[in-house]
């Protein structure tokens, strides 16, 4: 019989508790590896998950509500991951607004790569992590009232097991990443492997936002990076907020929170390795 464990993490400042058998906790470990330990000196968890075994099925509950049951433990992990992100993004409102963007930082401050899926956020994020920038997030960029971006360092996950611009050898040989996995059964009943890339340099503190890049990957286009007027950038960012506020509120919130000296750039790229960023103030 597997031992039941209870662990705590600080995810974007929210205390998250998970109770699960040791075997499931081991499967969860790569997903949670980048979040600080939350077991000391913190109050009652705001988000709690419990994984239990009932007969031949696993069961996932959160804050007393049944979320998922499945014979496959990997599917329970996938359900927990999805629910964790949703609950954290909801819990941090209104202190932090979550933008669908990747965020990396150097000593000058933070750069966001904001855009819809397929725009190239994760590729750009990976390119700069390989250049020893610090990781904040590949999906949830949390903007505070003081113009800083708070870390939400979930593991990077590519849609494919291999990335055309970054070989596994390059990723692992760089010393910038550790690799993790979890297995699950997809909706067609086929076994799938989710590959997780864990950056080794993770920002531990909020960092001032210096630049927002609106990228577009286009294999047939010429490389270009041109300034964008603030209101145009805000218009686009407003549609990328991950919390349920209207466009009107989103625009004003972003305008008040985005630092006045933040620069906005539109990037078109076909080779991620050609992209350079100077975010010095």
């Amino acid at each position, binding site marked *: 019989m597997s031992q039941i464990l209870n662990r705590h993490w600080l995810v974007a400042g929210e205390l998250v508790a998970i109770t699960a058998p040791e075997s499931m906790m081991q499967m969860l470990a790569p997903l949670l590896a980048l979040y600080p330990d939350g077991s000391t000196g913190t109050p009652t968890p705001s988000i709690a998950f419990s994984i239990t075994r009932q007969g031949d099925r696993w069961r996932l509950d959160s804050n007393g509500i049944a979320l998922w049951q499945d014979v496959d433990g990997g599917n329970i992990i996938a359900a927990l991951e999805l629910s964790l992100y949703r609950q954290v993004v909801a819990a941090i409102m209104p202190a932090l607004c979550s933008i669908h963007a990747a965020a990396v930082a150097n000593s000058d401050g933070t750069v966001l790569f904001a855009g819809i899926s397929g725009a190239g956020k994760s590729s750009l994020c990976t390119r700069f992590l390989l250049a020893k920038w610090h990781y904040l997030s590949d999906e949830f960029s949390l903007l505070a009232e003081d113009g800083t971006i708070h870390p939400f360092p979930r593991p990077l996950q590519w849609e494919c097991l291999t990335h055309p611009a970054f070989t596994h050898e390059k990723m692992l040989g760089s010393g910038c990443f550790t690799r993790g996995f979890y297995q699950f059964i997809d909706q067609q009943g086929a076994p799938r492997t989710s590959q997780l890339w864990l950056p080794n340099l993770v920002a531990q503190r909020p960092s001032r936002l210096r630049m927002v890049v609106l990228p577009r990957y286009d294999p047939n286009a010429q490389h270009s990076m041109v300034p964008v*007027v*603030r*209101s*145009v950038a*805000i*218009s*686009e960012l*407003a*549609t990328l907020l991950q919390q349920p506020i209207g*466009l*009107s509120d989103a*625009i*004003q919130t972003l*305008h008040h929170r985005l630092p*006045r000296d933040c620069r906005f750039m539109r990037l078109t790229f076909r080779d991620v390795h050609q992209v350079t960023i100077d975010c010095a103030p």
Partner: protein
Amino acid sequence: MRSDALPQAKPGLELEELEGIDEVVVIDGEGQRCVSLNLTAAAVLEMCDGKHTAQNIANEITQASGADSVQVEADVAALLAELTQYQLLES
């Protein structure tokens, strides 16, 4: 657009002025999209109420700004064409 045309903004547009930077974001709730304008363009859009002709709009701007009327008329015509292109005016 002719100078005696009566341009009318699409119903339901919301104008959000961005304090301190003289820029306005127009929210088209129906189309779920945003368009960015400077303050002058936003003022022209607000005057597109179906009662002011393009000429009336140009006259009001000329009076308020003291700018050359011929230039203002040309600018307003160009701006109305752009607002039409961005689907902010009723066709």
